[in-house]
């Protein structure tokens, strides 16, 4: 199980590959579910040209580990990986990766979904958008994944 807070742009597919190669034994897992959140160049009808992601060093990692523990207690997971970007982000760059490995696909799917929803509602990260007219605004409220 791993939590990575990342200040530079990262390649989520390479991160999944690396984690799998170093942490998982071939033939032991049958199902891998992943989710990648990527920065769009539009939000709430406005053009967004950059974003800054702030976090709370120490608490953010602790919260993510807590969420992973909850997932481990609810599903038979072989492994889980969470990578979250902080700092200056440009459109098209990945913001978050969640990956879950299990013997069975229901556990992998359900745990991956749980981790994303829990991360969005409980992990201390804050987004500030820079619009094309150079104005900045704090994102006030995360979208609800179940209704949007």
């Amino acid at each position: 199980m791993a939590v990575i807070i990342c200040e530079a742009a990262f390649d989520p597919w390479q991160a999944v590959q690396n984690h799998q190669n170093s942490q998982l034994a071939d033939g032991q897992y049958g199902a891998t579910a992943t989710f990648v959140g990527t920065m769009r160049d539009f939000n709430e009808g406005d053009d967004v040209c950059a974003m800054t992601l702030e976090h709370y060093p120490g608490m953010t990692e602790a919260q993510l580990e807590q969420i992973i523990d909850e997932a481990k207690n609810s599903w038979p997971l072989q492994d889980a990986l969470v990578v979250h970007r902080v700092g200056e982000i440009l459109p098209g760059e990945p913001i978050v990766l969640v990956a879950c490995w299990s013997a069975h696909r229901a556990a992998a799917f359900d745990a991956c979904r749980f981790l994303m929803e829990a991360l969005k509602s409980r992990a201390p990260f804050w987004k500030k958008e820079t619009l094309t007219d150079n104005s900045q605004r704090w994102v006030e409220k995360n979208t609800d994944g179940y209704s949007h």
Partner: protein
Amino acid sequence: MTVNVKFFASMRETLGQSELRIDIDTDTEQTVAGVWAQVAGEKPMPDNTVCAVNHTQATPESVVKDGDEVAFFPPVTGG
């Protein structure tokens, strides 16, 4: 007692500070709300403020002890 106080995101910008160390009369049991009052003065805590004590989410009524880290921030928007 001494408490470390942190503010994040829009709250950090509104209050104009990100971190400070405050001394509180040790004879009084202190709460998160009490810490807020000491650092923010007259300014009421915004309704949607999230509080944490030592990296764990807390409430305004949570008790604060010597050496604790108390944080105030708006609702999270990551992911």
